[in-house]
């Protein structure tokens, strides 16, 4: 039985809900969004990820209607959004500051958008109660925003923006104000709510873990451009550039020149060191300068030279970072390059296998890392 995977972006017949077509946004001399084209599909949980100032918030504000593109078009269900003002878009937004109206109760905050639509009283009451149930806020309906905790405020903001059943919900750093533990719980709550309501979510975040956890696809942005759009595992395992590799998670980066040898690539990177052997689907020219990126957890550390490893190098332990569940070893190679290797601490640490100054071997398989042009 084939698993029915949700991947409309691989289906050439699927109609996107949102289309950015060559969109550019300039503020004076500053280009916030630079000729950007991307499709977002119905029921997707789409994450815009990037450092502050990369243009992700501008993209979201253009979807909400608070900014208009300088060039290009944004289509929602095939319709050009440019002439539609924010109060007439079937798009709702959850603000980073939550923007809860301080003078209205939780109930009134959630009902606010429904009242604007002139929804009949009993229907509106039912809808607000449904939202309160969905976000587990029934007990707090009559409280004012300053009378509830930060986590509850976050849920009110979510309930308010979902109440009008928008085609598209925009979430601007929705969990930024919560502490780490609450944030992790809330991430799963958000996914549940997204799934049960079937709404398309676009989330803006600078927290890569959050993006990886919640999103069906992640768009990594830099300087107004999308560098890569892919599923979280593809972004992590097959980044298309050193920027993405470096932005998502921890990575070792080695620079050298390559030559192809059958299905394998061999990279020369330092004198006196064996070539790095790897596999790739991309083709590189002979002696082209490339970067080899490998995650620390894919590098094994051992006292003896492993027998059948595709790649093995020797070095000296420089530093050990003990993080509880894992330890990261910083190993310096004879040429000065430092490589990080991670091991899981699946035993209580009564005696460490390696300590500072120890001479160790690092090894990895031919498929562990990726070669990147830029």
């Amino acid at each position, binding site marked *: 039985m084939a698993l029915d995977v949700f991947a409309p972006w691989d289906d050439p017949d699927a109609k996107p809900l949102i289309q950015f077509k060559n969109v550019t946004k300039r503020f004076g001399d500053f280009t916030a969004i630079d000729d950007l084209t991307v499709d977002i599909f119905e029921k997707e949980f789409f994450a815009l990820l990037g450092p502050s100032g990369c243009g992700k918030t501008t993209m979201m504000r253009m979807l*909400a*209607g608070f900014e208009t593109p300088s060039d290009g078009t944004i289509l929602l269900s095939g319709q050009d959004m440019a002439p539609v003002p924010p*109060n007439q878009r079937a798009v709702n937004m959850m*603000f*980073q*500051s939550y923007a809860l109206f301080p003078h209205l109760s939780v109930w009134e905050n959630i009902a606010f958008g429904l009242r*604007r639509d002139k929804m009949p009283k009993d229907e509106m009451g039912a809808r607000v109660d449904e939202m309160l149930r969905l976000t587990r806020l029934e007990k707090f309906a009559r409280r004012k925003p300053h*009378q509830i905790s930060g986590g509850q405020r976050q849920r009110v903001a979510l309930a308010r923006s979902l109440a009008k059943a928008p085609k598209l919900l925009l979430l601007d750093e929705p969990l930024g104000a919560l502490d780490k533990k609450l944030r992790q719980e809330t991430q799963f709550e958000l996914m549940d709510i997204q799934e049960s309501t079937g709404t398309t979510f676009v989330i803006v975040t600078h927290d890569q873990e959050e993006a990886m956890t919640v999103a069906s696809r992640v768009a990594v942005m830099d300087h107004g451009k999308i560098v890569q759009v892919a599923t979280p595992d593809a972004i992590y395992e097959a980044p298309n550039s050193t920027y993405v590799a470096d932005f998502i998670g921890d990575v070792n980066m080695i620079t050298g020149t390559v030559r192809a040898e059958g299905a394998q690539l061999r990279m020369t990177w330092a004198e006196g060191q064996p070539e790095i052997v790897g596999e790739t689907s991309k083709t590189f020219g002979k002696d082209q300068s490339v970067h080899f990126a490998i995650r620390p957890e894919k590098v094994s550390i051992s006292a003896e030279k492993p027998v059948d490893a595709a790649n093995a190098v020797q070095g000296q332990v420089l530093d050990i970072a003990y993080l509880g569940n894992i330890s990261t070893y910083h190993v310096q190679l004879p040429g000065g390059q430092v490589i990080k290797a991670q091991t899981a601490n699946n035993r209580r640490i009564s005696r460490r296998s390696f300590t500072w100054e120890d001479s160790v071997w690092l090894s990895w398989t031919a498929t562990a890392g990726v070669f990147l042009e830029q």
Partner: protein
Amino acid sequence: MRRFSWFNATALTLGFAFLYVPMIILIVYSFNKSKLVTVWAGFSTKWYGELLSNQAMLDAAWVTLKVAVISSSIATILGTMAAYVMVRAGRFHGRTLFSGMIYAPLVMPEVITGLSLLLLFIGLNVDRGVGTIVLAHTTFAMCYVSVVVSSRLVSFDQSLEEAALDLGCSPFQAFRLVTLPIIAPAVISGWLLAFTLSLDDLVIASFTSGPAATTLPMKIWSSVRLGVSPEINALSTIMIALVTVGVITASLITKQQAVRQRREEQAADRVS
């Protein structure tokens, strides 16, 4: 807990004595039987009786109240609009001139404001009276209102308005349903400030009023220029009493609200 040092205690005692003893003397002498303010001749409330039967004084008080209520109300509307323009309207032609005209009346000597308005009214051949005083008071009071309201608007989270638009409000609805209720305390203090300034003003009213309208400060002025009078002492006592009661009530209300809000916030934190 911190205590007063002897230096601070002395500075504060002397300072507040300087601020309040003159007013206390004023109040005490309003209950003096003698017409001579300098000689204490026993307790009496007769000056209050005389004040209340002084029709000219009562008329002046009525004119002042009328002028203050009308001018501070118009000034509050115009000042709030001006504040909104200053903080939110972005760039437009003549913005520098506009902000200049908002701030200039705050530092303009009253004699100049009064003189210039009088010359305008004469030039236009307008009958001077309650109307012209209202126009004058509205103009300088709106600048104070706009300063008070704009300082609140600056700290106002603009995403609240955007949230209202996002949920389907027109810009005007967003202002009425979200912005206005939140900035209301600043608007009210703006109104109170405008009201007090209007009640208090002597110079601008003297320039811009005609023979038909005399305000209370003008009446007091013409009386005190001739010297101290127990009737004015009685009037002053009433005005000081009203202001004191008003200010104390207002501060008690705001203090109570602050305490309640803090208690509720603490309760909310405990729940989470």
